[in-house]
């Protein structure tokens, strides 16, 4: 039986934790074997490396907001489409459209696939950072 509410709750908990810079909750959303694949390099990033990337973003960026969240659950997972808005230390607000597909085991994200466009890094990082 599809556990839609549990999947929806996990999805919200995961993205809310990033927004709220709640690292312990974020960590609990990932299964021990969690891997995250990204469309820009087609590589699976291990759990610890992905958490380190997220922790760095949560520490360095002033704000991270996942807006226009559209979530659908399917058997064993969910897909969320959103626009990520980040406020950089220099106050530039970057944005990026993202599609996040997650496969869930025992209430935790076991595997995730993240699709976004690196051709619009200026829009996300700011013109100067994008040119670097």
């Amino acid at each position, binding site marked *: 039986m599809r556990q839609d509410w549990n999947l929806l709750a996990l999805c919200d908990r995961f993205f809310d934790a990033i927004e709220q810079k709640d690292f312990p909750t974020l960590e609990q959303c990932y299964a021990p074997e969690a891997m995250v694949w990204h469309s820009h390099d087609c590589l699976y990033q291990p759990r610890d490396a992905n958490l380190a990337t997220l922790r760095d973003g949560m520490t360095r960026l002033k704000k991270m907001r996942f807006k226009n969240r559209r979530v659908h659950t399917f058997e064993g997972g969910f897909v969320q489409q959103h626009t990520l808005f980040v406020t950089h230390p220099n106050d530039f607000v970057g944005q990026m459209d993202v599609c996040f597909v997650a496969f869930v085991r025992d209430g935790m994200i076991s595997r995730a696939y993240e699709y976004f*466009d690196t051709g619009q890094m200026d829009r996300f990082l700011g013109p100067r950072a994008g040119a670097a």
Partner: protein
Amino acid sequence: MSMTDGEIRELCNRFFDAYQDRRVDELADIYSSDCVVWHNVFGGREMSGKDNLAALPASYEGQRRRTYDDRIINTFEGGFVIQYTLHGVQHSGHKGALWICIVGLCSNGRITRIDEYMDSGRFPAWRGAGPAARENAS
């Protein structure tokens, strides 16, 4: 009318088979009359299904062959999410690939909305041009 998981999955495969075989007439039958297509690239604008179909013949001219492989399809109430690899053979013989995800909404046996996510940073390698392509080939 709501669709079963099986009907949605079949519609999704029918859509990609038609896209692969360049059957624009079949695609026109699959899109609802009010279908909207959105891409995260090309300025992130929405276009009508009709305009999307009109642009296809020119789009197909870019490659000798395209195949939509490694399809991972999951269905939800009223739609699907598909992750796949688009393999293309350019007229130069260069083989490229793009990794794409589409969220599709369906109703009454037709697709009513498509949101497509890809990485335009990989377009040079797809086309066989630029440093990214050389990196891919090595």
